[in-house]
């Protein structure tokens, strides 16, 4: 073990200690009424935020915290990445070949420790063909205590490769550094695919043609975080619903799966996931909808809207959630119920105030969700980033769903 690894382990342990101190102080010293007033505005502040208000600690809390630190530090030592997957820092490697994706870069042979997967409802990326892999350090597993937002072990890495017109254009990497820290990076492929190099933090524009007159942008780190960071950093597309073996045949742009890809069932069988609802092992997860159109529509909205429109992040106050919860106590159809016949802030241009609804059954022209996903006006379009071309297949699907929607069809 190198000095660097020891320091890293201590840092991880220190983080655990700091978090425990805050939790402990809150348990020991209930906030005053003044502090409660502040808390209304700081519901998920950082550790240091809370430390402003609690500077005293009981001996008992302190002792327990030190113990936690020791345990955290020792546990961290065991979770350091294995050889071939070098420890990541906030500064990503300069070349994709150095990230651990390939066993042999020249032949583009993927390291067999990286598991291939395909979400059943792919995110629309202007028609890019995509391939994805995940690396989980040996002897680790994913914690599914929160069935909707999995917690990944330190050392997890996820890659997504984008190709347009048969040519690799970029590969994105998200890597867990432990202690809640994640690193985001994108690598741009050369024209002859001989190398893929790190792009600047602000991204790279116009790297490849999507269609005549329209070119693909590689997102910057802040844009990566805009989608992936909610209360916790999330690996979008790698979830119970997305990996369910009961795949939706009507999902727009559904990808062909292969036998080497992992599914929720293979994760369970291989012990790569823990603390999941027992029912997952017996009944494959699916969106319970009254007809195939509704199932596909809700799945598409889950994958393309629910990453931000969910109760776990900045948009929770909008009260419009398209994430399909797989938690056992969540009533099915919650997303639809919240959007049907409800108005929001957005007004469809040219419409009278009060005539724009999130979803208006039977009336696509007054349904803001359909309008915004059809638009590529930069101030109206949804999603607001990551796409320059409306998804015609999905627009057609959602229009059909709104037209056919009947009250009794609620899933």
């Amino acid at each position, binding site marked *: 073990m190198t000095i660097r690894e020891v320091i890293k382990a201590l840092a991880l342990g220190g983080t655990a*200690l700091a978090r425990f101190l805050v939790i402990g102080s809150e348990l020991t010293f209930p906030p005053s009424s003044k502090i409660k007033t502040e808390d209304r*505005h*700081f519901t998920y502040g950082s550790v240091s935020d809370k430390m402003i208000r609690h500077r005293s*600690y009981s001996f008992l809390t*302190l002792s327990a915290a030190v113990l936690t630190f020791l345990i955290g*530090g020792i546990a961290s030592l065991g979770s350091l990445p294995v050889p071939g997957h070098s420890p990541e820092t906030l500064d990503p490697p300069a070349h994709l070949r150095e990230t651990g994706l390939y066993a042999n870069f020249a032949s583009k042979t993927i390291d067999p420790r990286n598991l291939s997967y395909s979400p059943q409802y792919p995110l629309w990326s202007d028609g890019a063909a995509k391939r994805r892999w995940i690396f989980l350090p040996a002897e680790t597993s994913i914690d599914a205590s929160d069935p909707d937002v999995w917690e990944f072990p330190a050392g997890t890495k996820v890659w997504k490769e984008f190709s347009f017109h048969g040519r690799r254009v970029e590969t994105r990497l998200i890597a867990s550094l432990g202690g809640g820290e994640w690193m985001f990076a994108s690598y741009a492929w050369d024209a002859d695919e001989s190398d893929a190099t790190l792009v600047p933090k602000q991204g790279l524009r116009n790297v490849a043609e999507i269609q005549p007159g329209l070119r693909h942008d590689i997102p910057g780190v802040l844009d990566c975080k805009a989608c992936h960071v909610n209360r916790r950093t999330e690996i979008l597309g790698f979830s119970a619903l997305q990996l369910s073996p009961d795949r939706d045949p009507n999902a727009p742009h559904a990808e062909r799966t292969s036998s080497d890809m992992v599914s929720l069932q293979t994760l369970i069988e291989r012990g790569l996931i823990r603390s999941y609802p027992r029912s997952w092992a017996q009944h494959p997860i699916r969106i319970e909808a009254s007809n195939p159109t509704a199932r596909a529509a809700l799945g598409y909205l889950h994958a393309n809207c629910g990453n931000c429109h969910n109760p776990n992040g900045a948009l929770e106050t909008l009260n419009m959630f398209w994430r399909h919860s797989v938690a056992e106590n969540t009533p099915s159809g919650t997303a639809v119920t919240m959007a049907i016949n409800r108005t929001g802030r957005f007004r469809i241009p040219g419409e009278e105030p009060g005539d724009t609804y999130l979803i208006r059954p039977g009336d696509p022209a007054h349904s803001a969700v359909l309008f915004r996903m059809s638009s590529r006006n930069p*101030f109206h379009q949804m999603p607001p980033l990551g796409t320059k071309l409306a998804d015609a297949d999905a627009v057609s699907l959602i229009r059909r769903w709104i037209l056919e929607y009947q009250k009794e069809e609620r899933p």
Partner: protein
Amino acid sequence: MKGTATKFFLLGLIALGSFAGILAAGAPVQPRDAKRGAYLVNSIGCGDCHTPMKMGPSGPEPDQARMLSGHPEALVMPPAPKLPPGPWMTSVAATMTAWAGPWGVSFTANLTPDPETGLGKWQAQTFIDTIRSGRVMGKGRQLQPPMPYPALRNLTDDDLGAIFAYLQSIPRLKNRVPDPIAPQGAGGR
């Protein structure tokens, strides 16, 4: 002997780490309260664009009855003037709340705590995410010129939290600011 020394070294490091963690946990941090937020807002000049200007006896002055409420809803702007080619590229309303340029037309936002038209439903983290990312609520459309978020994002979380605390303490004003207008040819309606 060497092994024992290594163990003592590691234990020493752990003890040092514990001590550092305790110090960090108890270190004084700037309080982020409305008073500091007011100081920051007034120093940075948020009101220069978010409080409409009106004509007073000595010339243009901030309309404090509309403090930080953004572009007035009732002030419907005519199309922005088309500027001739050259170094002039921006037009500004007399209120300083509507700006036209190559990005289209932007209107300054209502920063008061009105729940429907202002920041009343936001949380401190929403505000911090917005400034840090340059996107509405950290996830939506990009903020437009002349919003100086590339500079403001250098503020600490504590300072941004203080600004938000102050903004939540000012009088709430109902004022629905228009959506920005994209330049012609930018993605249709």
